[in-house]
């Protein structure tokens, strides 16, 4: 984690009506890293994602992408700069087709005006073809799971696991530099979970994305992470390799609630 950081949080604070959800959080993620954020429920993990993607504004501190602050930018602008995310609760465009879901999010990369679209002028047509090509390419990344005949089906017809995959495909279609994955393996069976673990690795190796992931499944965390950050009550309590963090007494305490004050 030395050297250049792609995404950096400096002393970020966030409180909701007196309850401090994230306090004085520092985080550096280097280009090409896969970093997992772990912590018990209510530790502030999703809040960190909401802060980074611009849905919340930090009370204090700064969030930098490539040394440029993104604080105060509207979320769509932040995504355009290269931070995409998925949602723990799955927020697909359910009544649009699978392919449309992936095409819609390329809005920020394209430029043709409504008038050009209405008249089908050359730029609009070229961009349409390109969006369609990119969408198919992103979906093809998921192999048999999201292939061919599913493209023109509405997103609501997908199974739960496929919805998670489509959310990731949708996030990659914004051509992000860093993807925030919020519990990508939640609600999946062991086979699917294993697939997801491999997929996250491929997203980095083949897709070239840096990845910040929230995950509860420790097998997944162990399998993918270059580095693990543990949060509890909005405070970073441990950071390092999976093996280091997993045995850290504060992490154990946060998860199991054991009183280990004496050993500290």
């Amino acid at each position, binding site marked *: 984690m030395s050297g250049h950081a792609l995404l950096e949080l400096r002393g970020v604070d966030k409180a909701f009506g007196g*309850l401090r959800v994230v306090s004085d959080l520092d985080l550096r993620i280097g280009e090409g890293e896969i970093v997992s954020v772990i912590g018990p429920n209510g530790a502030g993990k999703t809040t960190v994602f909401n802060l980074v993607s611009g849905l919340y504004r930090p009370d204090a501190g700064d969030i930098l992408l490539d040394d440029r602050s993104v604080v105060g930018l*509207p979320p*769509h602008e932040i995504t355009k700069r290269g931070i995409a995310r998925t949602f723990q609760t799955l927020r*697909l*465009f*359910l009544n649009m087709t699978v392919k449309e879901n992936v095409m819609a999010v390329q809005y920020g990369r394209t430029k043709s005006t*409504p008038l050009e679209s209405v*008249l089908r002028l050359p730029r609009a047509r070229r961009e349409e073809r390109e969006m369609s090509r990119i969408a198919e390419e992103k979906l093809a990344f998921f192999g048999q799971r999201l292939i061919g005949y599913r493209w023109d089906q509405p997103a609501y017809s997908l*199974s739960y696991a496929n919805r998670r995959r489509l959310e990731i495909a949708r996030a990659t279609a914004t051509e992000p530099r860093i993807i925030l994955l919020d519990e990508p393996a939640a609600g999946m069976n062991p086979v699917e979970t294993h697939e997801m673990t491999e997929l996250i690795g491929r997203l980095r190796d083949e897709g070239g994305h840096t990845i910040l992931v929230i995950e509860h499944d420790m097998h997944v965390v162990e399998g993918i992470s270059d580095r693990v950050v543990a949060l509890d009550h909005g405070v970073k309590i441990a950071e390092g390799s999976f093996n280091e963090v997993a045995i850290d007494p504060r992490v154990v305490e946060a998860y199991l609630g054991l009183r280990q004050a004496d050993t500290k």
Partner: protein
Amino acid sequence: MGPGGDIPNRPVPPDERGRPRVGVDEWVAQVEERREARTGLTGLVTRFVSAVPPAGRLAVFGAAAATLPFWMNRGDLFTYGIFTLLYILLGLGLNIVVGYAGLLDLGYVAFFGFGAYFYAELSSPQYGIHWPSAASIPVVVVATALLGLVLGIPSRRLLGDYLAIVTLFFGQAFVVFVNVGNPTVAGKGLTGGPNGLAEIDPLDVFGYELTTRTQQFYLMLIACLVLLTGLHFLSESRTGRAWRALREDPLAAETMTIPVKRLKLMAFAFGAGIAGLAGCIFATLLTAVSSGNFDVPILITIYAVVILGGLGSLTGVVLGAIVINVSFQFLAPENPPGNARLLFYAITLLLLALGVRPWWRLGAILAGVVGLGVATQTFVEAVAPGWTGGPVVDGGRLAGAISQWVVIPPAGHGRFGSFAYVGLVVAILVLTRLRGWIRTAALVPVVYLAALVWENSFVEQPAVARWILFGSLLIVLMTIRPQGLLGTPRVEVA
């Protein structure tokens, strides 16, 4: 939201009818079944629509519409042809705002009114300004779009229902303003108060005035075809997809490079602009405007056009406009009641044919209705002869049959129709609660009662009847098929 918060995964209660709730896994698993299951007329229409590509559908519609002037008289061309096209225009604009962007704009009709009034100011003796259409229409359309932009500003902050409220009040404020407000500008009431503005110049194409209905019809048809094509392209473009994305989930759209606020404003402006265009055309067609044309009933009619066909579907708008306008015109007070009666019996038969299977059961019901009619008539004649023999309103060739079948008391039994009507409403409500063969059997008296009500009270007040039927249509449509005829079932997972 609270710390780390997400919506908790609640256990999902089963649907009242025992079906899995929309969106849950069991429901998802049955998607194909449901798609297969669509039979009957809607299934037929849906299959036709999905089999014919959009260009083909447009060609069919354009070609069929283009023949109208050859076989319709002037009056019918105006009421059936031109007004249907006008509803299509209005529906297309509303479809952008509500169908694509999912913004509940209940002030839409005010843009229509604004367009009409503004055109009237620019091309009428009101202030002695007589701009040619080629100048005033673009000005009005742009001005209306800008007004839409202004009204769209609250949409940046207000969500869902609150937006509906503010826009509804905007619409009301417009009506009150032109009707009662009528401020004095340059020595004259700006909007003419309840009288409105009159003697509006006819539509002209670069100096050539379109005065015949046929000319106006073709111009509007061209406008509709062009607009349908353009909107189809727009819908299948980055803008159209972004609108639909923000309708589905504004927050997800916002985090996916889509500038939600700007797109909402754009949707308002586009919708308003089209409504402004429709307003201009409306003003030239009627050569007069008054506030009554831009009130809530018209708003709801436009909503019905868009919803009947299926929100977000261009084919749906065309279909909705045809169905709504044709049935409205049949029930117009100027229309001879005989036509409305034909429509009534035809639709009753059609509904029975659609709803009752197999055919022998349908036959039994029809026979039952006829038999019940004759029996009732005979009974009443025997017991209280004073209650029969009333005149059949505009019966034509059917008069004889109807008077033998439906009890029509002569004048002096004014309450009869009212009681029959209340009875019919109650009977229909009860009917919806019945199941199985009892329901089939109960259909017989209900259909007969409907005929009784039709012949005794609706036929004399078709204008009232049409709003009653229209209101009922909205309720029934929403209960049975909220997605409209062509729409696919919408899923909303809270």
